[in-house]
């Protein structure tokens, strides 16, 4: 038994040591190789990037010659030179928009860079695929649309995200709509990441919103309603306002947020009505949005909302109330009332969001007695007692 154990210990130490030595060797080899590549890259960097920069800077004025194309195609065949070309292209796309960007996309297609990225989409290595999707999105080549759509059903979050973001950047309306229609309800991506993707769409956004806001899938539909709000184009306001009466809570909230972002107060009456909605989340958002719209028709309904049974509704109502012109006058009425929760929330918001300095400033110009600051102090003292 002792001999057996001795062997186990010895072998295990030996195996573990070999693993560590191999790790060390791998690390050193990797670092040396990296160093070698970097040195080689430095040697050719100036020539390759200079050549490409020269062509790219004159794309608006001159056609790329066959000789230039041939040279660039040659670069793509060499790993290190291709890396430099790719880096430069990504840098251009990060900083350039408009016709020069379209010409660059065409150049990337002509020299085979897009084909090279498309080839990577076939890899089984999901990191490679996700990176290729990201690069294709940056290059904005429509040549990639079919291959990207083929990947939409892959259940790898990173790939799915990068496919959608690439489609958003390429900006082809039909492909983008198709992709979202094919997404299942169980999509693992968060709502915020999908809104970010929708916000990033570079094609005709209005066309896309009009197609995707009405999807039966309430999750995707509310994402595009929210994104439409972020777009702040009032052309869509009427269509968004329809969702204020939707049965689905998510769509209602999305529509409220969108109209709040747009600052369009044509629908203020419908929004005021939502202060009585059965869902407290809808009431809370309605209270918040009324503050964004700055419409004094909302003042009295907001005072009523200060007595809502949900804290968030009261909090948002108090913030909106004091932010709308004339709202602060109504604080006296709240303090004279019976509802302790309404008084508490309004005093809290005056102190935390509005600021005591502003309360004092208000008193300086107001002829009302007692002064608001005194009325607040009196209420606090009574409460503490």
């Amino acid at each position, binding site marked *: 038994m002792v001999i057996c154990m001795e062997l186990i210990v010895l072998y295990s130490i030996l195996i573990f040591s070999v693993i560590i030595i191999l790790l060390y060797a791998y690390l050193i080899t990797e670092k040396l190789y990296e160093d070698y590549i970097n040195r080689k890259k430095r040697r050719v960097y100036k020539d390759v990037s200079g050549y490409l920069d020269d062509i790219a800077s004159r794309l608006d004025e001159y056609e790329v010659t066959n000789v230039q194309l041939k040279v660039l195609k040659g670069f793509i065949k060499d790993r290190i030179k291709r890396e430099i070309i790719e880096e430069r292209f990504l840098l251009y796309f990060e900083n350039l928009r408009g016709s020069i960007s379209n010409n660059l996309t065409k150049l990337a297609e002509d020299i085979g860079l897009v084909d090279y990225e498309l080839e990577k989409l076939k890899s089984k290595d999901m*990191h490679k695929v996700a990176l290729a999707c990201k690069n294709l999105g940056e290059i904005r080549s429509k040549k990639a649309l079919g291959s990207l759509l083929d990947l939409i059903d892959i259940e790898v979050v990173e790939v799915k995200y990068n496919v959608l973001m690439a489609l958003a950047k390429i900006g082809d309306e039909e492909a983008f709509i198709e992709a979202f229609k094919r997404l299942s309800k169980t999509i693992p991506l968060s709502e915020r990441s999908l809104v970010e993707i929708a916000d990033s769409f570079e094609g005709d956004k209005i066309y896309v919103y009009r197609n995707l806001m009405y999807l039966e899938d309430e999750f995707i539909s509310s994402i595009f309603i929210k994104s439409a709000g972020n777009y702040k184009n009032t052309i869509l306001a009427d269509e968004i306002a329809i969702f204020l009466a939707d049965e689905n809570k998510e769509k209602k909230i999305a529509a409220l947020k969108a109209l709040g972002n747009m600052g369009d107060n044509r629908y203020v009456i419908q929004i005021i009505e939502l202060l009585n909605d059965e869902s407290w989340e809808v009431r809370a958002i309605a209270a918040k949005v009324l503050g964004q719209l700055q419409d004094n028709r909302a003042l009295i309904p907001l005072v009523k909302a200060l007595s809502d049974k949900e804290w968030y509704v009261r909090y948002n109502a108090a913030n909106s109330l004091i932010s709308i012109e004339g709202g602060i006058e109504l604080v006296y009425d709240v303090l004279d009332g019976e509802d302790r929760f309404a008084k508490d929330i309004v005093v809290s918001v005056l102190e935390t969001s509005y600021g005591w300095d502003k309360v004092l400033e208000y008193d300086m110009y107001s002829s009302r007695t007692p002064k608001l600051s005194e009325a607040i102090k009196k209420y606090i003292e009574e409460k503490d007692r």
Partner: protein
Amino acid sequence: MNTPLLKSIVINFNYFIIYYVLVINFIYFIQLILAAFNLSDYVRKIRYSDYKKYITSDNMIPISILVPAYNEEETIVENIKSLISLNYPKFEVIVINDGSKDNTLNKVIQEFDLKEVNQPVRYRLKTNKIKGIYKNIDIPNLILVDKENGGKADALNAGINISNYPIITSIDADSILESDSLVRVVMPFIEDKKTVAVGGIVRIANGSIITRGRVVDIGLPKSSVAMFQIVEYLRAFLTGRVGWDALNSLLIVSGAFGAFKKEAAIEVGGYAKNTIGEDMELIVKMHEYFLRNKIPYRIKFVPDPVCWTQAPETLKDLRSQRRRWQIGLMDSLFKHKRMFFNPRYKQIGLIAVPYFWLFEMIGPIIEIIGYVMIPLAYIFGLLNLKYFLLFFAASILYGILLSLGAILLEEYTFNKYPTLKQLIKLSLYGILENFGYRQFTTFYRIEGIIKFRKMKHSWGKIKRTSFQNQR
């Protein structure tokens, strides 16, 4: 008892110890390998991550940073300054003064010119009485909460009650975040809506230069105690946490830096008040709750968002810290003993919890018995020299190899200590820690086991020094 029987007991027990050492080290090696793959995956993922896009995006999730403070007058002001200047679209910093006996409260009030406000509190989690809330209208994202002492968990729960945003992150008052750490720790919530908690890596700031709440030059400390801990942290985070993350079985998200979905934290009852290991307890509670109710969820470790913390430089403080960790671990494991080898809790019940019971909790006891029994057995002629040497080879060499492995992972991935001199120093300490330091920490953990009943509800503090221009 007759001598042959006694001899047989001692010998068999010694066999058990050496098998135990073999098994535990085998598990560590599996972790190391899993961690290597997981880290390699992460490093590749960074190449296509869109996190930079989100730094300026309105779609980034707003976050509430909770800073529980108990007698933190030395570091709290710098810490707050560093936090409010973080690179993140929308966040608030909530400092919770848990009835400090020193000048923590006044220092913060004076430094940031805070005024008491009448903010009603929505007690979604029960906490001790909140005595006051302080704000400065010109620093709208800073909130100071003064409350009656109730322990760190109680302070964190109070912070959750006050918070306005859907993600909360807890940061120790003696820690510093790197500028884009928040974005990186929140990205898993953006990428996967099932995410309920994310842990970031905690690194030791001793030896680094810190100016105006920023680590401007990463260095290694002169203190040997801190140096050993650097190696230990690399092993714990880059091997341990990353390895468990690969198995979807992370049981600890460090209290020094972790982010949580607020609704999920409230759903499981918030931080447990009657424990000093509230960080582990919250995570284990989440696992139990979501698995029991068959709700899909994800708890992630991200090795990149860095939180810098001060490591104790004296053995006295180290002893207090390790004792506290051991008590926290035991408390959490006892509270969730029903998960032990329970298939209902999947890999958590079948792998992670049993591992923590058998190796992390009982480990120090077995190790100490081994240190005593084997030499004794050898002295009394019950064991031969070969066995005696085997035990030491097993326990020391494995330790060295694992530490070197962790250092290698660090060098391969994030390379925070890039010079050859730093690599050599780290490797040297990776060897030296097995001769004394490791045994000391084992004794401290034993002390934690002994004092478990008596100390399981205390805050436990170590002496901090100011970060300002620290080297």
